[in-house]
C-alpha cells in the first residue's frame, strides 16, 4: 500500500524527522487561507498522487506570490496528471500539498528497503540527492552507499557513521547529529510500520545546518496490514483503477494493461508466462489476472465479468492448469458468467490438470461458443488468428 506524500510527512513529523510546514487542500478556496498560515514566499504547490515522476509531469510548482499559490492549486486540482510512471491517460489530482519553500544548501538521498540477497533491512544514502536514484545508480554507482542492518541487533549509531563519514566531502560537523537522528528515525518507522520502502529524496541541508525531508515516500507491506490497522485509514482507493478495485473485492489478482487480449490464469507465474505467450503470438495482453489456487465458481464468474468490462478486449484466453483449482469449477464459473453477461468476444480455452475431462464436458454441453486449445502452442496460434 502506497501512502501520499503528505501522509508520509505527517508520520515523519510525529517521529521527529523535520519536514517543511505545509497544508493539504482539496478545494481552491482553501489555498488562500493556506498562504496566510504557511510562511512564504516562496511556496511549493505539489500534486498528491501515488505515481512518481511528478516533477517531470508538471505536478510540482514553486511560486512567489499568494495569488500564484491559488492559481497553481487551481491548475492542479482535478487535473489529469501524466508522469513518466502513469501511462498516457494519467491520474486525477484530488489533493494538493502547499508548503513553505526551503532554501537548499545541499541535497542528499536517503532510503530504507529490505535487501533481497542479504535478507537485511538496508539503508541507502547518497550525496547525489534530488535526482532519480536509478539514474545515479546507472551513471555513478560509487555515489550510492549501503548499510545492512543486522535485524537481531537493530539500529546502531555506527551504522549512521559508516554512511556519513564515507561521503566526500563529509557533511558539515554541525549537521551530523541532525542527519544521524533522521537515519535512526527512518529505521524506526520502517520497522514499526512494516514498510517495504521509506524514501526521502531530497533530504536537504539549509545554510544554517538544519535538515528537512523535502519529499517523502512510504510504501507499506500489504501482507502486514493485518497488524497495521491504523494505516488502513490512509488508503486512498481513488488512486487505483476501478477494475482493479473491483477485483480486489473478490480476492482476484488483476492488473490492467494496455493490450486487447484478456487473460484468465491460475497462479501468478503461469499468468505472467501466459501474457508473454500472447505477446509472442503478436498480440498485447489487456490484463494480468491470477484467480489463485483456491478460486470458487463465483470468483471465476467475477473474473470473466471484470475482463469484459474492459472495452478494449477483443478476445479472451483462459489458461488453467488445474491443481487445487479444479477444471470443473473453472468451467462452471465461465458458463455462469456467460449467462449473466453476454460474452461478445471470442473465447479461447485451454484446460489441463485436475478434473480436466469434467471441465471440458461442462463447456461442451453449455451454449457457450468457445475455441479449444489443447496446449499453449495452439492457444498462441488461436490468439494470433484473432488479431490478424
Amino acid at each position, binding site marked *: 500500500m502506497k501512502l501520499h506524500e503528505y501522509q508520509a510527512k505527517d508520520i515523519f513529523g510525529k517521529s521527529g524527522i523535520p519536514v517543511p510546514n505545509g497544508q493539504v487542500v482539496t478545494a481552491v478556496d482553501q489555498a488562500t487561507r493556506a498562504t496566510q498560515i504557511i510562511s512564504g514566499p516562496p511556496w511549493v504547490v505539489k500534486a498528491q498522487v501515488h505515481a512518481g515522476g511528478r516533477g517531470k509531469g508538471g505536478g510540482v510548482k514553486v511560486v512567489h506570490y499568494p495569488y500564484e499559490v491559488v492559481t497553481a492549486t487551481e491548475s492542479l486540482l482535478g487535473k489529469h496528471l501524466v508522469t513518466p510512471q502513469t501511462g498516457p491517460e494519467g491520474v486525477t489530482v484530488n489533493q494538493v500539498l502547499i508548503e513553505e519553500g526551503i532554501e537548499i544548501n545541499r541535497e542528499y538521498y536517503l532510503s530504507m528497503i529490505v535487501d533481497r540477497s542479504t535478507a537485511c533491512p538496508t539503508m541507502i544514502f547518497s550525496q547525489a540527492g534530488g535526482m532519480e536514484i536509478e539514474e545515479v545508480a546507472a551513471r555513478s554507482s560509487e555515489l550510492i552507499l549501503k548499510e545492512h542492518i543486522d535485524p537481531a541487533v537493530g539500529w546502531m549509531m555506527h551504522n549512521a557513521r559508516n554512511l556519513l563519514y564515507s561521503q566526500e566531502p563529509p557533511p558539515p560537523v554541525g549537521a551530523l547529529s541532525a542527519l544521524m537522528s533522521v537515519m535512526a528515525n527512518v529505521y524506526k518507522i520502517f520497522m514499526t510500520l512494516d514498510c517495504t520502502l521509506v524514501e526521502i529524496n531530497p533530504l536537504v541541508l539549509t545554510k544554517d545546518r538544519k535538515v528537512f525531508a523535502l519529499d517523502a515516500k512510504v510504501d507499506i507491506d500489504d501482507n502486514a496490514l493485518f497488524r497495521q490497522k491504523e494505516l488502513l485509514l490512509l488508503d486512498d482507493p481513488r488512486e487505483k483503477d476501478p477494475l482493479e478495485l473491483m477485483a480486489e473485492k473478490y480476492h482476484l489478482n488483476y492488473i490492467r494493461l494496455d493490450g486487447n487480449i484478456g487473460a484468465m490464469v491460475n497462479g*501468478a507465474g503461469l499468468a505472467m508466462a501466459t501474457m*508473454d505467450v500472447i505477446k509472442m503470438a503478436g498480440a498485447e495482453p489487456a490484463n494480468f489476472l491470477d484467480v489463485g489456487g483456491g478460486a470458487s465458481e463465483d470468483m471465476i464468474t467475477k473474473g470473466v465479468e471484470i475482463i469484459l468490462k474492459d472495452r478494449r478486449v477483443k478476445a479472451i484466453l483462459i489458461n488453467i492448469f488445474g491443481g487445487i483449482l479444479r477444471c470443473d469449477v473453472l468451467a462452471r464459473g465461465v458458463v455462469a458468467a456467460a449467462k449473466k453477461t453476454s460474452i461478445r468476444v471470442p473465447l479461447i480455452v485451454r484446460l489441463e490438470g485436475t478434473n480436466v475431462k469434467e471441465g471440458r464436458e461442462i463447456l461442451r454441453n453449455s451454449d457457450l461458443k468457445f475455441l479449444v486449445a489443447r496446449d499453449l502452442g495452439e492457444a498462441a496460434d488461436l490468439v494470433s488468428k484473432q488479431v490478424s
Partner: protein
Amino acid sequence: MSILVDERTRVVVQGITGREGAFHTKQMLEYGTVVAAGVTPGKGGREVEGVPVFNTIKQAVEEEGVNVSCIFVPPPFAADAIIDSASAGLEVIVCITEGIPVLDMVKVASLLKNEKSVLIGPNCPGIISPGKTKVGIMPGPIHKPGPMAVISRSGTLTYEVVYQLTGTGLGQSTCIGIGGDPLIGTTFIDHLKRFKEDPETEGVVLIGEIGGTAEEEAADYIREEFNKPVIAFIAGQTAPPGRRMGHAGAIISGGQGKAEDKINALQAAGIRVALNLGTLGETVQKVMEKS
C-alpha cells in the same frame, strides 16, 4: 537418488486441522508420502486422515521421529511455525503459506543462519521426488521419476513445465518450488549445488521470473561451477515496471528485476533460455539429446 526428500522422509504437517492442511495431508498420503504427524496447537490428541495430531513440533519429533515439516498455517503465525521447526532440528522445512510479512521473514532468515534446517518457500508449491515422496501441494500424477531436476519460483507454471517434460518422456529426479516471495529460505544456487552432487540428476530446468537478481546470481554460479546442462525460462517479459505481478517478489523496481536482463545474463553464461513456454518441453528434450 534425489535431493532433500525421499523414501526416508517422515513429514509433520503444521496446521493439519485447517482446510488446506487436511486436504493436502490426504493428497500426500495418497501419493505415498509418509505423513507421520500433524501439529495444531490446542488440538493434540486428535487424528486427521489417521495421522496423530500433536500440540508442539517437539512432541511430534519425540513420538513419531519426523524429519521434514510442511507448513499450512495462516500468515500471521507462519514465521513462528518455521522457527519452531528449525529449533526442533528438522532437516527440511517446506512453507506453503502465502502472505507472510517481509519483516517476519527478515527475522526468520536471521535465525536460520545458525540452524542446519533447509527452508523451502514460503509461498511455494513444495518439493517432490517423483515415485518416492511429495511434500507440498503439486498434483502428483503429472510427475514421473527420471533424470531432470526442476527449480522454480512459481507454482502452476512449474506444473505446466513438468507436464511438458513428462509428455516428452523426460521424468524428474526432484522438483522444487523455491517460492514467489522477495525473501525465501533457499535460492536457485543452494539447490543447484545439491543437484550437482546428485548422480541421478542429468540436467536442470530453472524457472525464474521478474524481480530481484536471483537468476543473474544463478547464471554466474552455473558458468563457474555447474557442469550439467541447464535450460531456463523467465516469466514476465511483458510485465510493466512498478507493478507487483501476483507474487510479492515479482516486481520490477528501480530498473532492476527485468526479464530481459535475466535472459541476457543466463544466455551470456551459456545457458539455453526457452523463450516460448509452449515448446519448452521440446527445447529441453533437444538440449538433453545433444548432451
